[in-house]
């Protein structure tokens, strides 16, 4: 394991300290927690957004804290959901009396811990709603199972719901637009290499030198298929087609080409070239393209493609001001 760390069991602590040190004017840490919040939270008159989950997906989620996006991010241990008491602290730190929306990636651990936190918060008289993001088309969609995982598409929920909240909308309306994003976003990724959780010290799975896994999750969850590594054009085609099969994107879309950690930006742009070719062949209009690391998996090599179908409301909110370091607009 080659990492620039100190005690493997202290990485989240150290990271949060370093994050706050880097952004003393815009961020604050809720004492005795791994909750990071807007320095000016609670923001009077505004519905607050709280997200979070296991660490190791940076810049998700603390990088999305800022005007027009999240009010707080709850940082769990690496790849482990934060506990309800931590999430509760996050909710309490940002509620201005206008209620709090929880943006949760669909993993059983995250869902259960955030739900309990919501109940605890309601017990304290705080109005809480939640939206569960499940954009990973590599998992089949079923109401009888745990269902699809939440991956990079979550960033669009942060951006658009955050903009809605910033516009002064009520909790119900913010929740509604968040769900609208969830309904209209789909993603899928591939991995070329595993990653190593610091406390574990060794990779959680292995991939041969010639192998890649199609549809692998951001914690190394199994995907659809393990094949020998393909060209960028083939990978872009596979991912895009799976996403397009799953939902009718005809019209206008936003595109997110996301790097999982070790993959250079150069490769993401090479993917993006083909992606644009495929979409324009299909007559799908691209309104905005985002290329970079938005939802990572430590030092995993690989990428994901997300598409969000847009209407006028979503376009306006997507372009609205955001001061979050990881998503300026």
């Amino acid at each position: 394991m080659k990492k620039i760390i100190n005690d493997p069991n202290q990485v989240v602590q150290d990271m949060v300290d370093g994050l706050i040190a880097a952004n003393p004017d815009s961020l604050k840490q809720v004492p005795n927690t791994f909750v990071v919040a807007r320095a000016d939270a609670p923001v009077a008159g505004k519905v607050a957004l709280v997200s979070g989950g296991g660490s190791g997906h940076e810049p998700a989620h603390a990088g999305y804290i800022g005007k027009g996006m999240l009010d707080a991010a709850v940082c769990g241990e690496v790849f482990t959901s934060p506990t309800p008491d931590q999430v509760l602290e996050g909710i309490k730190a940002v509620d201005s009396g206008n209620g709090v929306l929880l943006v949760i990636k669909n993993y059983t651990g995250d869902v259960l811990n955030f739900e309990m936190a919501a109940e605890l918060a309601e017990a304290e008289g705080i109005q809480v709603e939640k939206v569960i993001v499940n954009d990973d088309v590599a998992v089949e969609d079923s109401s009888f199972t745990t269902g699809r995982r939440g991956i990079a598409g979550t960033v669009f929920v942060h951006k658009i719901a955050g903009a809605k909240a910033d516009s002064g909308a009520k909790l119900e309306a913010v929740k509604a637009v968040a769900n609208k994003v969830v309904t209209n976003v789909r993603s899928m990724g591939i991995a070329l290499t595993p990653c190593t959780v610091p406390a574990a010290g060794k990779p959680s799975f292995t991939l041969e030198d010639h192998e890649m896994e199609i549809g692998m999750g951001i914690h190394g969850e199994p995907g659809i298929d393990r094949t020998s590594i393909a060209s960028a054009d083939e990978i872009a085609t596979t991912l895009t087609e799976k996403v397009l099969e799953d939902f009718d994107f005809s019209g206008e879309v936003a595109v997110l080409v996301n790097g999982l950690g070790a993959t250079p930006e150069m490769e993401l742009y090479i993917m993006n070239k083909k992606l644009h070719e495929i979409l324009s062949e299909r007559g799908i209009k691209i309104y905005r393209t985002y290329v970079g690391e938005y939802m990572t998996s430590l030092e995993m090599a690989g990428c994901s493609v997300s598409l969000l179908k847009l209407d006028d409301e979503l376009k306006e909110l997507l372009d609205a001001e955001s001061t979050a370091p990881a998503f300026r607009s």
Partner: protein
Amino acid sequence: MELEIHDLIKWFEITNERIQQHKDYLTGLDQPIGDGDHGINMARGYQEAVTKLSQAEYQEPSEVLRDASMALLSKVGGASGPLYGTAFLKMSLAVKGLETINAASLVNGLSAALLGIKQRGKAEAGEKTLVDVWGPVVDYISSEESNLRAEDLTSQARMAMERTKEMMATKGRASYFKEKSIGHIDPGSASSYYVFASLAEVWKEKT
């Protein structure tokens, strides 16, 4: 036969010993069909619970259950944390006010706990989760009530745990492995087995 405050504390202590002892086994079960942390999670949480219980003063059993629940909630993490936390929280509410817990109120308490787990996790029997041990065990205890025998409780729990091996997971991380989840014992069911085996041990000493 009645369980008193110290018996409940004993229950968590014995469970903790077994979980610490089988920590790596539980983690091992979570590797092929999960993310390999169940033993670590449970060991962290139960250690916290017994520490907490050893430090406080209690007026009635429900308080023990509530404190244990809070400790598990804040320390176990993952999917199992809220589930075990909810179970003991509901059980605590169900026996609130009682000075001791007899067979009937044990059935009440554990039934409430099971209901809590099902509501929280939205899992039914056969989905390869905690429910597949808690469900059969609660059924058994209800059917026996006061003639409950410790040995049978243990074996019922063990058999339930072993039956999860043949199940395909449709809830929790293991569900991503679909058919591949068949052939492995469910980690959470294994930890639940330790919970009930420990309860049986406490029960036995009373009878």
